[in-house]
């Protein structure tokens, strides 16, 4: 397990080092979340993994894993996008399942619709074949730490 200190976490956020962030989160390693930068955007990827299967018949990815992937993507996105110094705390999370998550790679993209002083609203879209045909959409509210270092992206 990659041990991370408060100081390293702060540096990771300030430098936008999502790889270090993801490597330091045990749950991210359990389900296997990856991230890459595409221009100004962050693209999250959940590689096909049989340990993430819920419905054994289809087979399909467990709905909870899809939710966890999207929630984690939103939190990491927020950390990177806002250069926040503390880990955002989830307030609520709402997701709509649109299609079964097949046993293949899944992608997610996030958008911060509103960032106030204390709360941020993040939308997350997850897809497999085509971004225009999402398997799930979600919306999360996070409590962000009030800090002079926090500024809008």
């Amino acid at each position: 397990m990659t041990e991370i200190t408060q100081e390293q976490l702060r540096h990771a956020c300030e430098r936008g080092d999502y790889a270090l962030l993801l490597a330091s989160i045990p749950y991210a390693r359990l389900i296997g979340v990856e991230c890459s930068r595409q221009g100004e955007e962050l693209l999250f990827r959940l590689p096909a993994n049989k340990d993430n299967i819920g419905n054994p018949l289809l087979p399909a990815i467990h709905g909870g894993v899809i939710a966890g992937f999207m929630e984690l993507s939103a939190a990491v996105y927020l950390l990177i996008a806002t250069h926040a110094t503390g880990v955002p705390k989830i307030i609520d999370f709402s997701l709509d399942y649109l299609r079964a998550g097949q046993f293949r790679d899944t992608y997610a993209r996030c958008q911060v619709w509103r960032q106030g002083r204390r709360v941020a609203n993040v939308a997350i879209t997850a897809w497999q074949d085509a971004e225009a045909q999402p398997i799930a959409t979600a919306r999360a509210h996070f409590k962000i730490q009030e800090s002079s270092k926090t500024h809008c992206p």
Partner: protein
Amino acid sequence: MAEDSVFERATRFLSALRHCQILGLKLHSASREGLTVILPYSPQIVGNPLTGIIHGGALTSLMDTACGMSTLCVLPQFEVCPTLDLRIDYMHAAEPNKDVYGFAQCYRVTQDVIFSRGFAYQDDPEQPIAHVVGTFMRLGQHVRGIKRGGPLAAVDTP
């Protein structure tokens, strides 16, 4: 339907879900009024490495599973019921090194849709970590799922 048959059906259902086995989910109790699933604390589901607090995703997997399985409590026969939507409100963070209990029940069953709700707690059900509501689609009894001895047939797309 006898209560022990609900428990038995729910146990069988849970044992067929691979990711639930990875998380170590166990059925705690089940009756026609709802059921409770246990998520054991484990270092692999930690979300914040500085505090050891478990990630919301593991909690969501617990509650999605519990809400989905609570359909077994109200349906006379097994039906595949995929999740339409799920909402989780986090009351406070889970304490590290403690198991989480997820209770769920169905409060409305229609021909096409089942409404379910539940909450997650550690020591005290009166102090939930999270409240959950979920809606599930009924695919009907002709769509077969998990039978004793393994899968029967492929699931149709609704």
